[in-house]
Every structure is written in structure tokens, then in C-alpha cells.
């Protein structure tokens, strides 16, 4: 008894000699080609959508607990991260000599003007520079949020920072929810929405 399944051998790609089944293979390929075209269209659509929805801030896997710190600001006031438990806190590591840090400062100020009414805290931690250097910097880049001093770089080393600027968004529970490596336009609407959404979350 012969098998009810008729097998068409797939031709070797390196040879052009067609097997007797080739015509049938061509016929059978049509639905596959249509399916392939639809799949490609779907993939392109998904990729385009992903591009549009690309978050400005990267979610941090596992929501690690943010290391607490105690640092003084330009006015001599002490800030502890734990003081801000229950509020979303933006922690930005920067230095005056770092060009992308300088570039993002004006947009951070604009973002701060928007976010403070939502109860969000913004702290910019200068790494390794003294008060005089930062004071001079503020003449060119006036900002209203606290500028803190990590003189011995102990705090920055407690975070997974590799380069400056790096920014972490700490959620109300004191966990690192988002990060941004490199400068950002902090007053971009999608970025602000991400932060406000986090502040509104329970």
C-alpha cells in the first residue's frame, strides 16, 4: 500500500535542475508569499509604532532600591534621599566641565518648572567639584532646583553610573524606576508624561 502523503523534494539551492514537483511547488508558494508579504507589513508597522513609542527614559529591570545619601547643596542645606520618600525624585549626576551636562541644564530647569507643581523632586549632584566652580557655573546656567556636592564621589559610586550625565528617576517607594544615560531634552512632552505618570501611580 502506498503512502497517502506525496513528498516533493526541496531542490538544492545550488543547482537549477528542477525536480518534477517544481510546478506544484510554485503553485503552493503563492499563499506563502502572500502570507510573507503580510508578515513583513505587520513587522514594519510594529517597528514604526515602536519608534513612535520609544520611551525617553529606560525602565530599570528589577526596580533596585536607590542608595540613600546625605549631601549639602549650594546654600548649605542638607538633603537626604530618604527625606523625599513618597515623592518621585529625579537624581541627576553631572559636572560643569561635561558638555552634555551643561547642554541639558536649561531643559532640566524648564522641566522642573513643570514638575514641581506635581510634587516631583529634582536633585542635581555635581561629581567631584567644589562650591566655587559650581557657583560660577550658575551665573551662566541659572537653575532653581538644588545642586548638591558629591566631593569625594562616594554617592556616584553607590549608583551604577558609568559616565556623565546619568539620571535616575526614583519612584515613591525609593526604587530606581527609570534611567537616562547621556543628555536628554527634559522638557519633551513624552518624557514629562512618563515622570508625571509615575508620580500619579500609587
Amino acid at each position, binding site marked *: 500500500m502506498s503512502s497517502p502523503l506525496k513528498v516533493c523534494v*526541496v531542490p538544492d539551492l545550488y543547482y537549477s535542475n528542477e525536480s518534477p514537483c517544481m510546478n506544484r511547488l510554485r503553485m503552493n508558494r503563492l499563499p506563502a508569499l502572500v502570507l510573507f508579504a503580510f508578515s513583513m507589513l505587520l513587522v514594519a508597522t510594529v517597528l514604526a509604532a515602536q519608534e513612535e513609542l*520609544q520611551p525617553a527614559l*529606560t525602565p530599570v529591570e528589577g526596580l533596585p532600591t536607590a542608595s540613600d545619601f546625605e549631601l549639602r547643596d549650594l546654600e548649605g542645606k542638607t538633603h537626604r534621599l530618604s527625606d523625599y520618600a513618597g515623592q518621585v525624585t529625579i537624581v541627576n549626576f553631572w559636572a560643569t566641565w561635561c*558638555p552634555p551636562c551643561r547642554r541639558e541644564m536649561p531643559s532640566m530647569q524648564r522641566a522642573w518648572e513643570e514638575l514641581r507643581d506635581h510634587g516631583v523632586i529634582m536633585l542635581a549632584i555635581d*561629581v567631584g567639584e567644589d562650591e566655587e566652580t559650581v557657583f560660577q557655573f550658575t551665573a551662566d546656567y541659572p537653575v532653581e532646583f538644588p545642586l548638591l556636592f558629591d566631593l569625594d564621589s562616594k554617592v556616584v559610586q553607590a549608583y551604577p553610573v558609568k*559616565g556623565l550625565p546619568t539620571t535616575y528617576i526614583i519612584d515613591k517607594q525609593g526604587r530606581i524606576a527609570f534611567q537616562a*544615560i547621556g543628555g536628554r531634552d527634559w522638557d519633551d512632552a513624552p518624557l514629562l508624561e512618563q515622570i508625571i505618570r509615575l508620580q500619579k501611580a500609587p
Partner: protein
Amino acid sequence: MICRPLLKRTLLLLPMCLSVAAQAETEEALDDRTGLPRWDVQAGDVRLRLVQRLPDQTRAFFLGRGFDAEQVDRIAGHCVLQTILYNDGHAPIELDMAEWSALVGDREIQPRLMSDWQQEWQDLGVADGPRIAFRWALFPNHQRFSPGDWNMGMTTWPATRGASLDVRIRWHAEGVSHELTVEGVRCP
């Protein structure tokens, strides 16, 4: 059984897919901010910019961070390039600068790594302040860039003034190793 030749060929081709060398064109221009030559390359989702730094520029920067004249000469004696890398794609990328190299003529060199520099500063008794500044001024030796992330910092290459470098960088994305070469980078 039927598809065995096809499967075999696919398996043979698979390792080739795990390493991609980009044939990207290098664009040279003068940097808007410094007026010095810069080189740009885009390879897939990664964009790299190398900007020439003058030895005196490097000396001034590190003198201002607390190094002494002899120490800054050690840095400025290298070919120092401002290095800016962007992840424009949708997948994270990881890099290890120990995998980077450059061809100077027929000689292959590697960028001087942070650990090597910090050992030298420790041996010379350089204070913490300048060492902290140095650590953050150099391009990070290991880094993971999420989509949209970018970073900049100096890379230091053991090449003499006037040398021409073909800088080859490598990164990894989704288990695939990528490589691109920036040709004709000149040390001032």
C-alpha cells in the same frame, strides 16, 4: 530528512550571522564647537563621532582639574580623541573598550584603559580630586547603552603626533558582535 541539505547549509551560515562588520562611510568635517576635525560614522543603530583634541587643550583641561604639569604631559603625549557614541536603535548594546583597536600603518594599537591609567596615578601619588575628575572625563571602558542612550568622553591612544589611525570599535547587540572602522583619524 527532506530538508537536511538546506538545514545543513543554514547551520553553516549561522556563525557568520553572529558577527557583523559594518562597511560604513566615514564623514569628515570641522567640529562646530572646537573648529577641529571630526569624523562621523553611522553603522546600523550605532553612531560614532571622534573629535580631535589638541595636546594643549588636554593639558589645560587636566591642569584645571588638579594634575601637575608633568602628569598632564603624560596624558597629552597620547592621541586624545573626544569620543561620542549613540545608540539610535531599539535594542540595548554593550561595549568593552578592551575589544577596540586601531591600525597605525601596519601596527595595531589598543586604547589605554582606565585601570591602567588609575594604576599610574596611584603609583605617582596623584590626589583623589584629580583622579575622580580623570575617571569621569574618560570614555567609560564598559558600558550598556539602552535605546536612546549616548555618552561622551576622551579615549587615549598610544600614537605619536601626526599619526593616522583607522579606529576599529566593537559592540554587542542581541548576541551579535558588531564592528565598525573609522578610517583616517589624524592625531594633532
